[in-house]
Each structure stands twice: as structure tokens, then as C-alpha cells.
């Protein structure tokens, strides 16, 4: 997403990225980032919570309209996630592990198996 923002901005379009991981804004050189401490898949807030979604979008638009510089500019949305952390740290995950996570787990299991077999000889 940061790559898209950089290309759009270079084409003359003003951009703001609303990012759950605002650290990427600084590390990838993204012009403007609004960080939100929300679970993945919920960049603009809770389902059905229009007031919260509006506050997030308004904050992102305020940043878009700001002439503050120099980039990278990272602002932090000043509201915590309204849901329970212990519930949502699990709830955002896909129902089945993504293909790359499945592969990483298989590789970790294979390494562990090799270590066990190596330790037994």
C-alpha cells in the first residue's frame, strides 16, 4: 500500500494512508500516514459504528488537507479500539491460516523435527 501511495503522490495526487502499522509510513517513505490502533481488517473501525468510522475518515482528511511538512508525516488517531483486546487479537485472523503462514508453520515443524532427530543420534 505504501508503494501505491508513493506512486500516486509522484503523479500529483495528494495521498493519506490510514494504517494499522504506521511504522511502515516512516520506513517506506510514505508521504502522509494516519496510524490507527485497530485490528487488521478494521482500518476505519467497528462494523456498524458509523460515528467512529466518520471520526477516522475526518482525521485522515484533515491530514490530507494539511500542508505540514516535510514528509514522512505520521499522525496517530487518538482513540483506542473499542472492543476487547483478548477477543480481537484472535478475531481478526482468517478462519484458515493464510497460505504463507501455513508454509511457515510447516517449515518450523520440519526444523523442529530435524533438531529432535539430530539430538537423538
Amino acid at each position: 500500500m505504501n508503494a501505491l501511495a508513493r506512486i500516486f503522490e509522484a503523479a500529483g495526487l495528494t495521498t493519506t494512508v490510514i494504517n494499522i502499522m504506521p511504522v511502515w509510513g516512516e520506513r517506506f517513505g510514505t508521504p502522509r500516514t494516519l496510524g490507527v490502533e485497530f485490528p487488521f481488517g478494521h482500518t476505519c473501525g467497528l462494523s456498524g459504528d458509523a460515528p467512529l468510522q466518520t471520526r477516522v475518515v475526518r482525521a485522515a482528511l484533515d491530514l490530507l488537507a494539511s500542508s505540514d511538512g516535510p514528509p514522512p508525516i505520521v499522525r496517530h488517531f487518538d482513540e483506542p479500539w473499542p472492543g476487547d483486546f483478548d477477543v480481537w487479537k484472535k478475531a481478526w485472523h482468517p478462519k484458515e491460516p493464510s497460505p504463507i503462514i501455513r508454509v511457515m508453520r510447516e517449515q518450523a515443524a520440519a526444523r523442529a523435527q530435524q533438531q529432535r532427530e539430530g539430538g537423538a543420534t
Partner: protein
Amino acid sequence: MTVDSYKWLPPSLKGFFANMQIETPPEIPWAPLAKPLSEARIALVTTAGINVRGVEPLFDYEREQTNPGWGDPTYRVLPRDLRQEQVQSGHLHINNDDIDADFNVAFPISRMLELEAAGVIGSLAPTNYSFMGYQPDTTEWRERYAPEVAQRMKDERVDGVLLTPV
């Protein structure tokens, strides 16, 4: 408050991302908004990997299943009058249930239309865009699809873009 970028990640991924080696580009593009927000046309771009059911195909999640190191680099077009029942999701890296219930959690078209009606923004663009965010290799984004979408937005006289990765 200061947002903790790693708050929602499991410990194994937290370490992976925190230690990822990234070469920060020396130059950052900068194009300040040239008109008041109340006169500006704004487009939305998400990486939620959604599409309009029956109009364009789902992203190629089947190929990603067989080749986990690949992510579909193409994009889909989403109209400003998108309705919930039109939305098809399938992103393999998040739980899509809430996007299926209220796409505004990741693609806030309804909120933007309200802000347009209130005069906060000039207008929401006629055309908005969806990418799929899992991109181990961004070459096709950088060399083909992002410039193509940028040109389409400029052709529709877009001034600013809100991007919503998931």
C-alpha cells in the same frame, strides 16, 4: 496516544516484522492539496481485495493457495454507489466477516458520501479502486498497475486519495 504498530500481531510475526530490513527511499514524493478540501475530489483505494460480484472476477486467490509466495497484483473498480450486497470478499490474510457485513470498516464509501453531502469534501470520485494487499513482490504494482490507476484518477480529475490497507 501513540499507536503500537505491532499490537495485534502474534509474537512470532511481531519479531519478523520488527526485524525486517527495509531500505528507506531517500526521496519522498510530495504533492500538497492545491485547493480547499471542500472543493476537492477524493478517491478511495483499499487493499481489502474486494470486487463487485458478477462485474469483475474475484482476485486470484486460488493461485496464491498453490503459490504462497505470490499475490495477485491486479486491481478492481468499485463505483461510488457500491451496495453491500454487491461486495465479494476473499482476502486470505484477514477475517472477512465484518467486511461482508459492513464494507465501511475497510472501504468507507458511505462515510465519504455523507461528508460529500455535508460539504466537507467537494466530491467522492465516480470510480474507486481495490487491490489485494498481500504483495511479496511489488514490481507489477510499481511498473504497471499503480501508474495505470493514477492516470485513471487524473482522468477523472481526482485531487486526493485516501488509502485503506487492511
